[in-house]
């Protein structure tokens, strides 16, 4: 047991060493253009010595904005009354189609409802659906990946062929097929988007399992007589966690996009429920007269997705430093 954990630490030290030597190789070539490329696998581990020193200050202005956006989104989803005291469902016909002003910062819609209040209250539906989708994706995907990666052979082949198929159909179409079977509604949209998120989690987990399966600490753990589930849970899962964290953030961003696209197409909650995609869709008939009705809810979606992707990027580089 303890030997296994010792080895686990060792292999990390080694991984860092190799990363460092790879950098030296890059630096030696005299071309340093790589380190200005965020998100490239080649650049991610670049110059660990320099960046490790800046680690605490690594949260730049962009990351802080991203965290604020996500924080506001969570606030809006769970405690909308903190952000607005206006009711999202009752409108004042006298105030219909008002452009943005201090009183209605996002303007009002065709029924005189405050658009800001509707957007704030809409985040509960959209974000909880996205969160549920990612949860479904991560739980089933990691399970499939663990099983598939650890038990090679027939089980692996069957699981992977199914994952192949799930990947062969574009995510949105796959979700639409699931919706056809289950019917409309926010919960079904969440389930449908979750199914489409399974393949990436399964593949990532499987790759990591295969990578660590033959390592010394796993072999030591097995030699200690640990059962397979224990080996998977105690020794392999911790290795996978870092990359899964980054992928969760990334998939959350794309889940928000998918959920709002499906709700835009009319497969989500029925009106008058505020849902981000639905809000944009409601503004379609007023494109010429009331630009704010489509512009603001869409901007909010984009901001949340951008923030989630940024977080994924940070988590991913964090993983490289571990």
């Amino acid at each position, binding site marked *: 047991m303890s030997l296994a954990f010792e080895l686990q630490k060792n292999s990390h030290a080694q991984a860092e060493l*190799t*990363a460092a*030597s*790879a950098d030296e190789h890059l630096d030696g070539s005299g071309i340093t*253009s*790589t380190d*200005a*490329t*965020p*998100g*490239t*696998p*080649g*650049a991610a*581990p670049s110059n660990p010595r320099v960046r490790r020193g800046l680690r605490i200050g690594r949260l730049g202005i962009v990351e802080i904005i991203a965290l604020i956006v996500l924080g506001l989104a969570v606030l809006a989803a769970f405690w909308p009354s903190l952000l607005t005291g206006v009711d999202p469902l009752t409108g004042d016909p006298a105030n219909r189609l008002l452009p943005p002003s201090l009183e209605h910062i996002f303007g009002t819609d065709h029924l005189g409802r405050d658009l800001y209040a509707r957007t704030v209250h809409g985040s509960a539906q959209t974000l909880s659906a996205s969160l549920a989708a990612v949860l479904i994706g991560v739980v089933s995907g990691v399970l499939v990946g663990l099983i598939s990666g650890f038990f090679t052979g027939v089980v692996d082949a069957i699981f*992977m*062929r199914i994952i*192949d*198929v799930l*990947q*062969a*159909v*574009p*995510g*949105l*179409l*796959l979700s*639409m*097929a*699931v919706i*056809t*079977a289950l019917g409309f509604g926010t919960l079904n949209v969440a389930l449908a988007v979750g199914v489409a998120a399974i393949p*990436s989690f399964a*593949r*990532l987990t499987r*790759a*990591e399992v295969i990578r660590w399966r033959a390592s010394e600490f796993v072999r030591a753990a097995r030699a200690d007589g640990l059962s397979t589930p224990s080996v998977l849970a105690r020794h392999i899962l911790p290795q996978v966690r870092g*990359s899964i964290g*980054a992928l969760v953030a*990334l998939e959350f*961003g794309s889940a928000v*996009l998918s959920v*709002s*696209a499906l709700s*835009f*197409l009319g497969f989500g909650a029925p009106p008058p429920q505020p849902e981000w*995609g639905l809000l*944009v869709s409601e*503004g379609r008939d007023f*494109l*010429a007269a009331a630009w704010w009705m*489509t*512009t603001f809810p*869409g901007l909010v979606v*984009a901001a949340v*997705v951008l923030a989630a*992707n940024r977080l*994924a*990027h940070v988590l991913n580089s964090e*993983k490289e430093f571990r």
Partner: protein
Amino acid sequence: MSLRYLVSRLGQGLIVLWIAFTLSFVLLYWLPGDPVVTMLGAGGELQNIDPAEVDRLRAEFHLDQPLAVQYLYALFGLLRLDFGTSIQTGTPVTEAIAASLPSTIALAALALAIALVAGVVIAVTATLTRRSWLRDTLAALPGLGVALPTFWVGLMLLQVFSFRFPLFPAVGTGTPAAIVLPAVTLAISLSAIIAQVLFRSLQNAWVQPFVTTYTASGYSRLRLLLRQALPVAVLPALTMSGVLFGQALAGSVVVENVFSRQGLGRLAQTAVTSQDIPLVQGIVLFAAAVFVLVNLATDLIYPILDPRLGAANRRSAGTDGANLAEADAQGEGSIPAEADATPGSDATGSGSTESSATGRTDLEGSRA
């Protein structure tokens, strides 16, 4: 590229399609609703319908048979390229798909062309420029492009270029100008994927020893990039084509809705709305077939384009080249799995992870 390899890849593609068919059958035919009632448009109420008519239709669609028999009927129909009949309209699914295809192909082709040009220009400029602000801005563009909701981009373009400045028609398929805004909308997320992948692989190619050698012998940066680095960098990016086509198809659902165009995407949306099971299944299988075919084509083209694979090909063939090139560029310290563990970060949620996964699908396939 031996014949055996070709046959085995075709076989793998067919297996994927067969599993896709089986999965979609299980998913769609275990529905609580009764397709016949839907077909007769009775709004879920059986009493207004002639029972004899119900029985006749049920027999015609083999719905009175056990599920296993229905499955076999459908499978044999599929072998004759018969996807069944649309419940809503009564036309064969194959016909409905074929009729909607030309408009979507035109849209997707134009969008892919725009995306290719934009993506290459962004990636090449970002690699070449010595101004760090320009490089950082360009490198951030793909991340922005994939984060914008497609439906919203379409509506914004409509708002500006149809309503504020009436340059393009807002709806319809009539005039050639009508395709511009939909194609641009669709191209934004596609170009983001292309730019992201190409930029990354250009970065990797740019640190290869041969670049240093050429620089030392006085090659200009532009010439070096276009003549030497780009051909190397394009290869890994090529594995993305299956995902790109899939994205174009999925994007057409939203874009055709926003711009009120007829096409496959619109067909898919109405099929889902009216729970037209055979039509939904047909479209899903069509999308899977496109993905399989594009990947197959990529696999076949790959060794021709990449002479390095000549020897490796005889051994195991396939798109190993993508992974080889990436692994090369990352130095020997990294493990190929690392490339997958880095899910593109700024890139498309699904797009980027799928890209690496696609590469690996083929890798596995060729070794199996």
